[in-house]
């Protein structure tokens, strides 16, 4: 890539949901904490527009992969905490394995093209 500056990239569909589920598997969290967590874990490589988290959360809620509860956070703030459900766990595992296979495939293709050039 000739561009030295890292452009923020669009995620592929379902990636955000996967990261949310993965974060929630480690521990239940509310929206803001999830954003912080994803950004930290990706070493700030992934710039998630904070707002886009919410439609994704709603989708997961609708699919019953997470459940939400209002509570009070450690900083004494009213927060809505999300928790992964059993269905969410199952979905995540399936997604991760398929993602890994896809990633492997992409990596192989990219390697070969490098080898040719």
């Amino acid at each position, binding site marked *: 890539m000739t561009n030295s500056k890292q452009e923020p990239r669009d995620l592929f569909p379902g990636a955000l949901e996967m990261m949310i589920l993965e974060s929630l598997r480690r521990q239940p969290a*509310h*929206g*803001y904490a999830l*954003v912080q967590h994803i950004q930290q874990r990706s070493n700030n490589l992934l710039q998630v*527009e*904070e*707002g*886009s988290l*919410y*439609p994704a*959360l*709603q*989708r997961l*809620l*609708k699919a019953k992969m997470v459940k*939400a509860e*209002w509570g009070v956070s450690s*900083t004494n*703030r*009213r*927060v*809505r905490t999300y928790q992964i459900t059993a269905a969410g766990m199952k979905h995540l595992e399936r997604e991760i394995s398929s993602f890994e296979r896809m990633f492997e495939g992409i990596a192989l293709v990219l390697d070969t093209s490098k080898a040719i050039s």
Partner: protein
Amino acid sequence: MSWFTRLFSGIFWRRRNLYSDLAEEMREHLEEKTEQLMREGMSREEAEHTARRAFGNATLVEERSREVWQWPRLESIWADAKFAVRQLAKSPAFAATSVLTLALGIGANTGIFTLTHALLLKSLPIPEPDRLVRIALDIDSPNGVVSDQPLNAFLLQSIQRHSKTLSGLFGWAPYDFVLKEDTGSRIYSGAVVSGNAFQVLGLTTAAGRLLAPADDQRGGGPDGWAAVISHRFWQQHYHSDPSVIGKHVTLTDHSVTIVGVAPKGFEGVFVTMHPDFYLPLEYEPVLRGAKSMLRQPGGLWIMVWARLMPGVSQKMAAAEMRTIYPIAVSETLPPSVRHLAVIERSGFAVRPGGKGWSLLRPQYARPLLLLQILVGVVLLVCCVNLAGLCLARASTREHEFAIRGALGAARTRIMQQLLVESLLLALCGGVLAILFAWATDRYLLQFLADREAAASLSVRPDPFTLLLTGGCAVLCALLFGLAPGWLASHISIEPVLRRSGNSITAGKNAVAQRIFLPIQVALTLALVVVAAMLTATVSHLRATHLGFRIDNTLLAPADFERLPQKSLDLVHLYRRIILRMKQLPGVDNASVAVSTPLHGMGQTGVFTSASSSKPAIDFTNRYWVNDVGAGYFATLGTSMLAGRDFADEDSDAGTCILNRSAANRIFPGSTAIGQSLRQTNRNMNVGKITTQDCQVIGIVEDAKYTSLREPAPPTVYLPFGVNTDSLASMYFVIHAAALVEAQNAWQKALHELAPGSPETDPTSFAVQFDDSIARERLLSVLSGFFAALALLLSGIGIYGLMASYVTQRTTEIGVRMALGATRGKIFALVMRQVAALLLLGTVTGGGLAVFAAHSIKAFLFDVSPGNPAIFACAVLILTFSGFVAAMLPARRAVSIDPMQALRSE
């Protein structure tokens, strides 16, 4: 509260909760982020700003999150609809104009389509209508092909014997019956049909049984003469009483047994008729006695229908019919007739039968198609007009759209909202349109010359036409809503918001608006030209030289079939009635004739000079024949050119009168008076040729007979009574000071001298004349109405465009005035704009109109499609109405006060 409302309120309650949770959650998120940033050292304001930026378009995010729960878009559309109602309520003038425009545009389409559907497109209510075919005779005469002629019983049986592609054949002939009851006699329409007709059609009875082949036998079947009645007649006449089955009624002087009721909604196979009685074909000889056609191989009177065998196409059946035709002809006709050129060249045609048949079809199919195209253009004008109006409205709402965009509304969302508004207007228009169409169809049906057809064509809106209307409305909404919607959603937010009040520069909208106007003008011009040509056609037809007068003349059909008097006695009765009528007040002349002009029916005969040796049977020797009484020419105002009229005595037999062109053709270069004329008759049943000579005693001026469009045919007038075929059903022709007097005289004379005969409906000659140009009048009136509508819409369009032009340029006009422009100059500035648009529209419209005029050539009479006067008139009318429409905005421009205009900037 019903379980239904409970369920719904439950859903909505849950949903509201969801939404408030979401909003709160997002608020908390922003708060937390802000606090975090403040802890890192930002000021509160700066932190809030950064938090928002990191979050993205909050409105959009909230909307997207909500959409997860929604039935896709439904809720947002519902919200848009509510908002649209509020918006439209705020500008009732705009809403009313658009709804009315659409109602007229869509209504015209629905109205014409309902007629088209009823007459041309509706299938018979039978199973598998696609497999029903109609077998007709196409006669190839030297005057052109006469298609769709009926067959007879012999041909029907012959086809039945030889065909391997048809699974059932049946004949059908319309016939009127007189039902005699205690309350009196009344005529009901009906049909005589083959015994298997209902079976082949695949109908099931509503009560009792339908006709069977066993009923169709000489002398009647097991139940005597079996009759099936229509479901309507059963309901209205017998109140759906099942005990009516087996009842004996007197139908045209003979006792018949009602054996069953036809299924509901079945109106026979002739779409413009509504029979109440169905009897077997074999009943025809009983009705007509000696005049029966059932056992005559030469007559043509039965329409034949059939079902295709499974797997057989119409083409295959047609091919088979070509081979069967010569066999059928040789089986049924005597050798001397069989080899006539006209018979050898004719043949059977196989046509789709599933939609029934009507004589009105060939007459009205093309006019209806033309009208359908015209209303389509009108609808297009409506849409273009509304698109212009909506654009103008969208440009005044620019600010609103910019604010919505600034608050985070997506482009598609703004577009959707405008489309919902258009759809709302279109649907309101559609509902009104159905009412409008229903009302106009009643009016339109009066133009049909056939009164029974007018009464039997159902023009009530049915699901099919409702669907079409709905489709029309949605299409309109898309047509006129798309452009404003697209423009509104692509507003650049910042400049609009920064700008306040009126701007000096006109936006994209004005340009778009200006594209629409010339389109509208062009379409309108084409419509005006078409309407002018069709109207000119009617006035030319009215102005043709007829050879007779039509005012204050009554045509009264006689129905003397059941009087005891026959032949010569009947002739004397006619003479007595005529004499009596002449004595009655107001009547100045009266006579009788077998056929009356412009009735659409007439007879022809083969005539030659008795001294000529040329072969007689030939189409070139065929002339119109009319049997008339003395005084016929005087009554109709046809002038006698030479010789004398009939004397109304028995000595009239053996004399005849010719019209001028017949005299010139039969006796070229010599005086016809006193010469001998020979009539040659060929009996098609037995093939015998007979001749009859008569002396020419008079010459009359030419008069039109069949159609106003054709020149007056050469005609031979014979004294009535010599030929007794139609003696019982002649027409009285009465000329009086007023029509009422003619009618009174006829009724009085009839009651005095022929008290037992049924009363018939007399027609005024003026009505018969109008009926003969019914199609032309229909086209002229409707196209005139459509053109006027388009003109009005164009006027509104021009007014709207100029008004918004002046509003947008108020400042500019103020500046110009301040710099010394006179009022005249400002006026000219506005008018120049209109002139440019009109010019553009007229040039494109001119081309369109030339094309349109050439495509309607077949409908015109004495009007050339390139008639410059009509084009000039149309352009003049359009230009005039355009300038009148622009007058108001131009006056407003002139009265702008420069000081105020400049201050408001």
